[in-house]
């Protein structure tokens, strides 16, 4: 059975009363360079139901669009087929053209002659042409069966939900709050601030991180339009753009944030010590704690997993000691439901844990630490009071080595580049050199990525003025001298082309950025997709970098991919702008791909009910009824209905069958 045999006369096709206009795009030479457009034009004219065929170099351009408009105006056609690039590219463009001339925009079909034909069969022109004929024939068959549909308009609640209270979430919350929208900012840890609060200085300006962050933390807590929910999580999201019904669960702190003065009197009497999350387990905190002194809200929190005062009643020393009487062991979980028009996901990241890279000895050799651990040491309010010390003997190290790309650019861990590690390693190197100018600091790198504003200059300065030694070669192995806990770093100096061994006192691993632990949860709540590395996927990598494919849900910051603080803030402004644009209009139109159920055919078998992921079908008086607002048009119920009672708008059985017959019927 030759594919070439597409002689239309052998195909059993029903008479088509519609007048289909077919507009073939050359797309410059993208299509016309491979597919003989003239031949295709001639073939198309002979198809039953086609009343007009045009071809033009760029159908999406103004003159191209005018060809369609003219044909509609002159009453020559009542259905449109554009044979061009992928409908995912320009279907909205051409739908607009139809609307402009008063024709229902859903009477259009697009035949994909570019992405699915000319671009992938460039060297088989005959076959590409035969395929193009088939694709056009299929589109004509479908177009004849298309029906006019009306998109639904729904109102948009002027409230935004922001998940994640780091710099990305805070920035978006302030922008939206300032614009007059109501915001719920939900953060799972007891304070906002995220990872930026753990940093000492930020590259390349060497601003003090807390100095630029804490004012924003205070603003967001005080902002009249922002409802801050810390120590809380989003546990359920139902609904759709403009009308998300969100359940927020706030965990009990057992401390009344309004009464707590953060005096800290409770700390000395608490008998329980656990590793401090904020200090990356370099030091201890008590079961009653404040993550850091500038935490917002400024209140202590009791960690109910460690506290022994809850059930049964045992300790309670803190309660006795608390002056303002802020401690309340009877507090319980609180759940509230809110309606949000838009959602912004700003969940940030977790640093890579290099324990499984046995060659570096993290977790085994005490003097191998990660970058975030070094950051806490450098911080004056950190566990070492700003002193750089090596863990084995708490002495100041004279020789330090930074190992780049730990967990990044590595097939065995993450193949992507984490973007900020070169810069933060050099930043930390400079800070060490400032404190100890005589120290020997090595940076072992694969490439130096210093792409941003002021970054290259920063790098130059680190090498020239600060005297940091850069060696191009990824470290193969770190070994320890057991008696002294001194380390030996082995790498290849690829510029000199020979192996190198450096003795050092302290090794810092520049670890990768990975998606936050709760990314899985957020994904299943919102049904947004993630790329292979686990970061949330944007709707379009170039043109829609902060939208997701779920209308009304936006992403920003490292949740979307590794980036530094300036880029994070820029993206969160982008997400806020996207959200504001939806909420500002107060309404949004939704594609009319929802189902309709014929109650004369539905026999109440209930096969469909459980299949709908959006609970859009319910039973009323024995037969099934669809909730058009909830239905997203997936069609799973349509294909399983054994009575054939459900119709999928714009993807009806008739329409799909006509495409199937047209595709294979030419045999």
């Amino acid at each position, binding site marked *: *059975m*030759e*594919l070439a045999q597409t002689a239309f006369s052998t195909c059993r096709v029903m008479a088509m009363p519609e007048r289909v206009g077919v507009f073939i795009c050359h797309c410059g030479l993208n299509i016309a360079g491979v597919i003989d457009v003239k031949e295709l034009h001639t073939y198309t004219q002979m198809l039953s139901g086609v009343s007009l065929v045009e071809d033009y170099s760029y159908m999406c351009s103004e003159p191209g669009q005018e060809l369609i408009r003219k044909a509609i105006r002159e009453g020559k056609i009542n259905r449109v087929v554009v044979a061009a690039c*992928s*409908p*995912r590219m320009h279907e909205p463009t051409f739908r607009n053209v139809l609307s402009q001339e008063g024709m229902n925009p859903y009477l259009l079909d697009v035949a*994909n002659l*570019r*992405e*699915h*034909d000319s*671009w*992938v*069969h*460039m*060297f*088989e022109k005959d*076959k*590409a042409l*035969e*395929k193009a004929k*088939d*694709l056009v024939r*299929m589109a004509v068959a479908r177009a004849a069966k298309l029906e006019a549909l009306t998109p639904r308009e729904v109102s948009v609640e002027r409230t935004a939900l922001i998940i994640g209270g780091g710099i990305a979430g805070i920035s978006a919350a302030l922008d939206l709050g300032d614009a007059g929208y109501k915001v719920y900012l939900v953060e799972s840890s007891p304070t906002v601030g995220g990872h930026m609060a753990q940093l000492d200085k930020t590259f390349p300006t060497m601003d003090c991180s807390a100095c630029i962050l804490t004012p924003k933390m205070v603003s967001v807590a005080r902002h009249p339009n922002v409802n801050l929910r810390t120590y809380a999580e989003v546990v359920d999201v139902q609904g759709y753009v403009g009308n998300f019904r969100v359940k927020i669960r706030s965990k009990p702190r057992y401390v009344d944030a309004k009464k707590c003065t953060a005096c800290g009197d409770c700390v000395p009497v608490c008998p329980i010590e656990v590793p401090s999350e904020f200090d990356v387990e370099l030091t201890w905190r008590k079961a009653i704690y404040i993550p850091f002194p500038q935490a917002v809200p400024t209140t202590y929190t009791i960690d109910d997993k460690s506290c022994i005062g809850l059930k049964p009643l045992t300790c309670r020393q803190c309660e006795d000691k608390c002056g303002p009487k802020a401690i309340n062991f009877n507090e319980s979980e609180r759940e509230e439901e809110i309606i949000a028009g838009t959602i912004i996901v700003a969940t940030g990241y977790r640093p890579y844990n290099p324990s499984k890279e046995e060659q570096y000895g993290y977790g085994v050799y005490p003097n191998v630490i990660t970058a975030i651990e070094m950051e806490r040491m450098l911080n004056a309010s950190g566990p070492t009071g700003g002193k750089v010390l090596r863990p084995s003997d708490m002495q100041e190290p004279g020789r330090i080595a930074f190992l780049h790309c730990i967990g990044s650019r590595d097939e065995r861990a993450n193949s992507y580049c984490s973007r900020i590690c070169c810069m933060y390693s050099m930043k930390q190197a400079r800070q060490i050199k400032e404190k100890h100018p005589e120290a020997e600091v090595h940076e072992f790198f694969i490439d130096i990525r210093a792409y941003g504003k002021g970054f290259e200059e920063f790098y130059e300065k680190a090498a020239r003025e600060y005297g940091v030694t850069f060696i191009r070669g990824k470290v193969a192995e770190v070994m320890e001298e057991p008696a002294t806990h001194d380390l030996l770093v082995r790498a290849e100096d690829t510029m000199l082309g020979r192996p190198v061994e450096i003795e050092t006192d302290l090794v810092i691993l520049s670890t990768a950025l990975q998606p936050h632990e709760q990314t899985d949860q957020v994904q299943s709540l919102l*049904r947004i*997709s*993630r*790329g*292979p590395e686990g970061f949330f996927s944007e709707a379009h990598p170039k043109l829609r970098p902060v939208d997701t*494919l779920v209308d009304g849900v936006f992403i920003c910051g490292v949740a979307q991919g590794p980036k530094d603080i300036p880029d994070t803030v820029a993206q969160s402004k982008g997400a806020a702008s996207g959200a504001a644009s939806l909420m500002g209009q107060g309404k949004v139109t939704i594609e009319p*791909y929802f189902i309709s159920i014929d109650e004369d055919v539905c026999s109440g078998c209930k096969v469909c009910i459980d*299949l709908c*992921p959006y609970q859009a079908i319910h039973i009323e008086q024995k037969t099934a009824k669809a909730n058009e607002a909830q239905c*997203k*048009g*997936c*069609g*799973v119920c*349509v*294909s*399983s209905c054994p009575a054939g009672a459900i119709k*999928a708008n714009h*993807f009806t*059985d008739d329409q*799909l*069958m006509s*495409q*199937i*017959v047209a*595709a*294979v*019927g030419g*045999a």
Partner: protein
Amino acid sequence: MKEDFEPRILGFLCNWCGYAGADMAGTSRIQYPANVRIIRVMCSGRIDPSMILTGLSMGADGVLVVGCHLGDCHYVKGNYRTERRVHLLKKMLGDMGFDPSRLRLEWVSASEGEKFSQVIRDFAEKLKKIGPNSAVKEMP
């Protein structure tokens, strides 16, 4: 089996993953054989077994169903339903005398242009070995 037999593959691709993956193959200019004719659906769960059967009864040598990877369905669980339907349908096709490998289910994400092209190449090769679908010739 004739040397010049080119299998005709009918493809049902979901909008969010399969179809986008095929688009990606296009934008990356990955070349693959011209055997497939693609029909776009919003979710692979929209695909009714009767559509697959119609394709085969009208002479398609192979039917390809492409959806999102399990767990990534844009509509949450549609592809799980597709998976079960296809398995049951393959059993029925076997009982009806077809080589069940004429029906093929693949998960291809929007970024997997290379995988999509490889699926077409591989499917076309395998169908060449099985031979043309004789169902149409013998229709009463």
